[in-house]
């Protein structure tokens, strides 16, 4: 007893909110759970090194490319006397990213967390519970923002050669998530409150999330779109110092204030810009949290779905209503289960659909933004022999590269969470179970492929033969890519989560799986590139690449089968 009681050392006392914050961060970012999953026991440090190693391996080249790009951009815009435009680009892209990644994360954290009931029974005001959840989401989004917008800030600072840039620069970067998180929280709180009693609340929430995202993309496009200016007006803007800043922030002054803060023409403009940017960013977030907290518990109340009261029914009618779905094979049943687990959870569905939408939306805006010129240029290029074939192969590559972004396969096991025991006890072999997951992931990625085909037809005017090739190779490449992602998830499934988002967006493993699948696509791209350089006919390139994908798919599936057999017993 004495030994055990000696080990009972309470951590120092904290204020309730500080303790709650600490707990939420610990639950979200604890390394011990990952160490357990990787079979490393309590070796948390090893996991930390592994994470940093992987991040460095994957992100340093990526950030290097991004820095190179932003460096060229900064040099050009500083040279033109338009440094503020770089700040606008950095803030805007960071904020769009936060909306894109943060919306469903916040919805899940605020309304689907399994600890909500526990927290609500404690003497904590709603704003504290909300703020603690939002803080974790803020931190998560900030990491992404630093990754994407950081290189822009860094390169601009280097080119401006102004020491007074750095301190406000860091704060401007750190405050980027404020407004998009505030917008997301407000929309989510309204959505949850007013749909809490609707029987179709899940669908309404998913659709609303997608509409909001599309709206924000359109808004940003309109805000920054320069095509409305004629050549003379545009030159005029370029002649003025930071002339582009006002033109690119006409509907959204936060961008302008951010640009003033870092690249203002006078000290007073810099101070004013920073105060406005920081004040409005923090103010809006605080205001939204305090305003929407009154709706928070109302929307979070479970079991309040109201359905029209039914008339009294006879036993026969009741039996009729209790019609069992027709019998299915084990594989079909697994497939249906996969589908239902995805679409019945708005967090999963919204994440998957938003991930599917991002690239097509960027391509569509790029095409529209290019105006008639882009269409004419494409028409001219596609006339050159071989260009369409290369474009087709690039589309296949894009499909392969972004298939894993939907996170369907890379979180297929993790999404089962604490219900995974069911998969372990049912008399269906793990091989059949993971193959059903694989087939479902492939079918889901076909939606993305179809969007790419439509883009190919509209922008590149692909003929029927090439459309068929694109469909064939697209479906084929999604097999090994999804198998790689599944392999990773089966090996390191994250089953202990408090809200469903932690199984998808909050799951570091999905990123690792995506990076691994990118390596595969890159290797495939390298082979195709070599074949093109050697002058191999495109029909042969299609055949060879198809054969390679097929062979690798077979190998990955066999590997997946073996790992599944072992891991389903171990987990």
């Amino acid at each position: 007893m004495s030994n055990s009681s000696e080990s009972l050392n309470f951590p120092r006392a904290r204020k309730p909110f500080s303790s709650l914050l600490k707990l939420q961060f610990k639950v979200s970012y604890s390394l011990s759970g990952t160490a357990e999953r990787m079979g490393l026991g309590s070796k948390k440090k090893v996991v930390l090194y592994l994470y940093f190693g992987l991040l460095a391996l994957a992100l340093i080249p990526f950030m290097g490319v991004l820095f190179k790009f932003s460096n060229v951009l900064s040099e050009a815009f500083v040279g033109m006397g338009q440094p503020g435009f770089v700040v606008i680009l950095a803030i805007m892209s960071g904020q769009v990213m936060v909306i894109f990644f943060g919306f469903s994360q916040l919805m899940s954290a605020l309304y689907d967390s399994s600890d909500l009931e526990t927290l609500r029974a404690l003497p904590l005001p709603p704003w504290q519970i909300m703020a603690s959840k939002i803080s974790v989401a803020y931190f998560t989004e900030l990491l992404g923002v630093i990754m994407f917008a950081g290189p822009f800030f860094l390169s601009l600072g280097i080119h401006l050669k102004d020491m007074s840039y750095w301190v406000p620069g860091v704060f401007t970067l750190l405050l980027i998530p404020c407004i998009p998180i505030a917008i997301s929280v407000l929309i989510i709180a309204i959505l949850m409150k007013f749909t809490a009693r609707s029987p179709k609340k899940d669908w309404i929430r998913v659709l609303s999330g997608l509409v909001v995202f599309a709206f924000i993309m359109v808004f940003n496009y309109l805000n920054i779109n320069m095509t409305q200016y004629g050549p003379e007006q545009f030159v005029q803007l370029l002649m003025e110092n930071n002339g582009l800043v006002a033109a690119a922030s006409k509907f959204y002054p936060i961008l302008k204030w951010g640009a003033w803060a870092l690249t203002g023409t006078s000290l007073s403009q810099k101070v004013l810009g920073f105060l406005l940017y920081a004040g409005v960013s923090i103010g809006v977030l605080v205001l939204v949290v305090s305003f929407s907290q009154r709706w928070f518990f109302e929307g979070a109340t479970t079991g309040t779905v109201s359905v029209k009261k039914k008339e009294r029914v006879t036993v026969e009618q009741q039996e009729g209503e209790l019609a069992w779905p027709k019998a299915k094979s084990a594989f079909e049943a697994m497939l249906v289960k996969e589908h239902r687990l995805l679409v019945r959870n708005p967090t999963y569905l919204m994440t998957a659909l938003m991930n599917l939408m991002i690239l097509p939306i960027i391509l569509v805006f790029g095409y529209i933004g290019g105006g008639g010129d882009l269409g004419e240029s494409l028409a001219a290029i596609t006339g050159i022999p071989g260009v369409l074939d290369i474009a087709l192969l690039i589309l296949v590559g894009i499909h392969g590269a972004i298939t894993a972004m939907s996170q369907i396969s890379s979180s297929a096991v993790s999404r089962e969470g604490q219900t995974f025991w069911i998969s372990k006890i049912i008399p269906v072999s793990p091989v059949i179970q993971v193959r059903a997951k694989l087939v479902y992931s492939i079918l889901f990625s076909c939606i993305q492929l179809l969007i790419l085909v439509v883009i190919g037809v509209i922008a590149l005017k692909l003929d029927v033969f090439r459309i068929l090739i694109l469909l064939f190779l697209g479906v084929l490449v999604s097999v090994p890519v999804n198998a790689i992602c599944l392999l990773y998830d089966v090996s390191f499934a994250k089953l202990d989560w408090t809200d469903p988002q932690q199984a998808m967006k909050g799951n570091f493993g999905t990123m690792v799986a995506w990076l691994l699948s990118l390596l595969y696509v890159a290797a495939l791209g390298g082979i195709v590139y070599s074949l093109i350089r050697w002058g191999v006919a495109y029909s042969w390139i299609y055949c060879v690449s198809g054969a390679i994908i097929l062979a690798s798919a077979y190998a990955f599936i066999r590997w997946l089968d073996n790992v599944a057999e072992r891991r389903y017993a171990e987990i």
Partner: protein
Amino acid sequence: MLLRLEGVSKTYGSGVRAVDGLDLQVQPGEIFGFLGPNGAGKSTTIKMIVGILTPDEGSIEVDGIDALEQPIEAKRRLGYVPDEAQLWEKITGLEYLSFLCDVYGVPYEERRLRALELLETFEMLQAVNEPIGTYSRGMRQKIAVIGSLMHRPKIWILDEPMVGLDPRSSFMLKEMMRSHTEQGGSVFFSTHVLEVAERLCDRVGIIHKGKLLTVNTVEEMKHLFAQEGDKSLEEIFLLITEAQLPEEQLASLAR
């Protein structure tokens, strides 16, 4: 009165009233057993008392404090053990207890002593520095029970507390419930184990289809049904909840 519910109602989907005009009082020093079949409204009532759900109608008073007007103050006086404790898997038992102490404002110097006493009682001292994710169901239930008592609540509310506990822990829990009331607190718990209610409770309330059918001591209840022979609480429970008792008898029970 430590706990008072007046006209409390809650309606869920399908228009079904999960709890319908519930009136209830729990006195200091009393163990109150809340009985009812599955779906009767027990957990909904408890969730409204502890502030997880908001009633559509009615009022809830905890130690003289309006729980709907001053929820934080009311919650400070309650200790709650849910039917299925949702605990954070990645933190240790000690971190969990420490978090609760912070939230309820338990003075630092009292924490260790209080925890030692409870951890020893439930034989959890060895496991308290392990992550909760490694705990068995019974151990989770025990740490939830310990957590609910760290701030010495006036009213201890337990939803199906015996589920998952081994016989020794179950016995200790019952002893603690008794000791809690001896110190002036009160215990309000729901259970399916009628034997426990019969032996432990000062009064029992039986809820069925959202309505509180009867509140009495076990002895009074047996007396009421004496004309039907010497009945156990279980038999009375079945009579009330399964048999179609005449309206007059139901009305007399409610009185």
